[in-house]
């Protein structure tokens, strides 16, 4: 069994040094890998990224991350990514990695994702340039996720994103804002690629468990939803072959 620890939306500010570290000290006893589902910072500053780097470095298991909308706020994404990378945290955006875990190959591909809404209640790539840019951003990211998941040669395949790929895990949020919380195209990418588990954050008031139209389990790991420093999923030998 592959044990995947995950958390999103830790929103660490400059004053947050050590907030999660006590719970993370025994992480290797719980899990083989830690996945961070975006919104690692409050405003996306370099100072906050250094707090994130200190919190999640040298944990004894590989740490992979995607960024969230808060991490984009100050438009310092490449500097943030560099700070996290220097701390051994691999930031995914349209790419993936394969990790050996107990004789199995765990593949993880990640993107930030974006909004747009869910089938029958979503925006269209039509009309004003602002609308086309919004929906076009979603489509571009979903395509990147699909090819990144597709390219993984692995036994178990996990999709990591910040925005939600299905509406069920948003349950608890006002339905009117679902189009700002996720997009069905992300779920389509998950379903098209033999993925075993999809993880996301962003919906602080949502619910933990959902499933894609194709039957892939989805988990919202936003820290306010899981109510702990991280949560752990045990994945039995995957269905996703090469």
């Amino acid at each position, binding site marked *: *069994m592959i*044990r995947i620890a995950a958390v999103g939306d*830790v*929103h*660490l*500010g400059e*004053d*947050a040094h050590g*907030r*999660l570290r006590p*719970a993370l000290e*025994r992480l290797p006893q*719980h899990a083989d890998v830690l996945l961070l589902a975006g919104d690692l910072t*409050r*405003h996306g500053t370099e100072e906050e990224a250094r707090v994130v780097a200190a919190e999640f470095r040298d944990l004894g298991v590989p740490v992979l991350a995607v960024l969230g909308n*808060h991490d984009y*706020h100050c438009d310092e994404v490449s500097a943030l990514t560099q700070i996290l990378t220097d701390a051994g945290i691999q930031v995914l955006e349209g790419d993936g990695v394969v990790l050996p875990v107990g004789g199995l190959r765990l593949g993880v591909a990640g993107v930030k994702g974006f909004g747009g809404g869910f089938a029958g209640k979503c925006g269209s790539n039509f009309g004003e340039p602002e609308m086309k840019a919004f929906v076009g951003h979603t489509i571009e990211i979903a395509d990147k996720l699909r090819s990144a998941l597709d390219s993984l040669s692995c036994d178990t395949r996990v999709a990591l994103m910040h925005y939600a790929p299905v509406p069920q895990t948003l349950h608890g949020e006002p339905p009117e804002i679902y189009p700002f919380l996720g997009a069905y195209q992300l779920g389509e990418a998950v379903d098209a690629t033999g993925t*075993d*588990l999809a993880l996301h954050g962003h919906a*602080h*008031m949502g619910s933990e468990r959902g499933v894609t139209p194709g039957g892939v*389990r989805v988990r919202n790991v936003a*820290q*306010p939803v*899981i*109510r*702990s*420093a*991280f*949560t*752990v*999923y*045990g*994945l*039995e030998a995957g269905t996703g072959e090469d």
Partner: protein
Amino acid sequence: MPGPDDTEAPQYRAARLRRALAEDTRTAELGVQVTVRGEHVYLSGSVPSRQRKEELDHVLHEKEPGTRVHNDVRVVEAGEPGEPEVIE
């Protein structure tokens, strides 16, 4: 940004205060719900720490000194998790 007055509908006031909590860099909280009932403002949702929760009061009191704020926001737990969920 205008303060409260007799002509502002409570829905608009709630929307304005909610945006203030999202857009003020001291709070930057997009997930805090604001409900207005007369002179009373109720906050719900969750934030990562006690300081973040107190900052919500601080920003609202600065925007609208007379407001009675009821801060029901939860501070998110950061302990070790319970049993893992096994997905086959």
